[in-house]
């Protein structure tokens, strides 16, 4: 990699915006990997469309993080010139696409959370965050409906689709706890009515996930052991590979535009 990584002054608000931006960018990139490979044309378009929504959300959040930081960084530098350990996304979202069921279960777990999260963030005392949330919640509502319908379709489909959907739920379950994690930096923002307290979202999220899973005749794991680390930059091996592709152009030809 030719270009050195940037340094980011991670004040609580910068870090908060970065975490949400990284979530959107990494999942958006994962969805874009389906482009041209989805099981049918309609799904190819759906996955690319959702990826585009997420990329748009990421851009707004990166631009805001850069403004708050007030240094030399901008949305492109934040996306292209930070290394793996500087990324703050949820581990769930960097997991490989796997089969279609894995992609849909990952999408379902996150969209169910994001939909609640954005709606709560619309009440943020920070006007920019509230405005970004007001746009994003309209998009997440569609993402949630799309993935919920697929969970039911896969669960109630053939023995093969049911088995794959169940395997995906079992594989990804341990990554869901991280969505509700809060550290000291975020706690201060929650107290200041800027950040959303995810603790209050856990029960509605679980209720919604359970209802859809039950309609889909799928079972949620009983285990409550949860993987964590993404929010502080400790990632699975998959993120480095993803970033090497996402960043290769800017790292090789710094500042390239077209």
């Amino acid at each position: 990699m030719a270009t050195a990584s940037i340094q980011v002054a991670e004040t609580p608000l910068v870090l908060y915006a970065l975490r949400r931006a990284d979530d959107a960018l990494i999942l958006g990139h994962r969805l874009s990997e389906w482009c041209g490979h989805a099981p049918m044309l309609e799904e190819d378009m759906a996955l690319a469309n959702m990826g585009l929504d997420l990329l748009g959300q990421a851009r707004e959040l990166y631009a805001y993080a850069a403004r708050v930081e007030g240094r030399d960084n901008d949305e492109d530098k934040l996306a292209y010139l930070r290394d793996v350990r500087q990324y703050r996304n949820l581990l769930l979202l960097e997991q490989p696409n796997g089969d279609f069921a894995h992609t849909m279960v990952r999408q379902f777990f996150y969209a169910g959370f994001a939909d609640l999260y954005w709606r709560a963030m619309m009440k943020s005392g920070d006007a920019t965050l509230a405005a970004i949330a007001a746009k994003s919640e309209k998009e997440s509502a569609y993402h949630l409906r799309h993935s919920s319908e697929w969970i039911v379709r896969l669960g109630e489909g053939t023995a093969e689709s049911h088995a794959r959907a169940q395997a995906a739920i079992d594989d990804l379950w341990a990554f869901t706890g991280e969505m509700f994690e809060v550290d000291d930096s975020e706690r201060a923002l929650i107290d200041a009515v800027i950040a959303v307290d995810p603790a209050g979202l856990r029960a509605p999220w679980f209720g919604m996930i359970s209802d859809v899973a039950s309609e889909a005749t799928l079972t949620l794991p009983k285990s409550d052991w949860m993987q964590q680390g993404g929010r502080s930059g400790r990632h699975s091996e998959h993120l480095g590979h993803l970033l090497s592709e996402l960043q290769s152009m800017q790292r090789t030809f710094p500042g390239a535009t077209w």
Partner: protein
Amino acid sequence: MVTAAFTEAELRQLAWDVAAQVVDPEIPVLTIADLGVLRDVAINDGRVEVAITPTYSGCPAMNLIGLEIELALQREGFRNPKVRTVLSPAWTTDWMSDDGRRKLREYGIAPPQASSSRRALFGVQQVACPQCGSKNTEVLSEFGSTSCKALWRCLNCREPFDYFKCH
């Protein structure tokens, strides 16, 4: 430059009329005024500043729309026009004008319905076919050829059609 013979209010109206004519590159029958994307036009020290609101977060048409507004204003003699994006209040399809809805239908795209049912997870929507008017239609995909459209099919005339999603 459109000269100082105009009052500021007249200049503003002129600039608004020019900006309002810019069309959506993906749906060229709709102007940004029809869409409700054009939010405000202001004159600051003789310089026009146009405020637009993005439809979908990642809609790639927004960059082009901004560029088209600048070009249209420059063609009419406004120097260094500026386009800025406002996020709040968030754009909604409820802002689309009745004229815009009619033009969409005539173009073959079913206009957005009232947004009340958007939250229903497995809610049933009824969308009339823009070709034959039948309500005997079904959704093929929630995501269509652009961020703002879903793909539907008419079971009466058998034609597929785009539906401009509620947002």
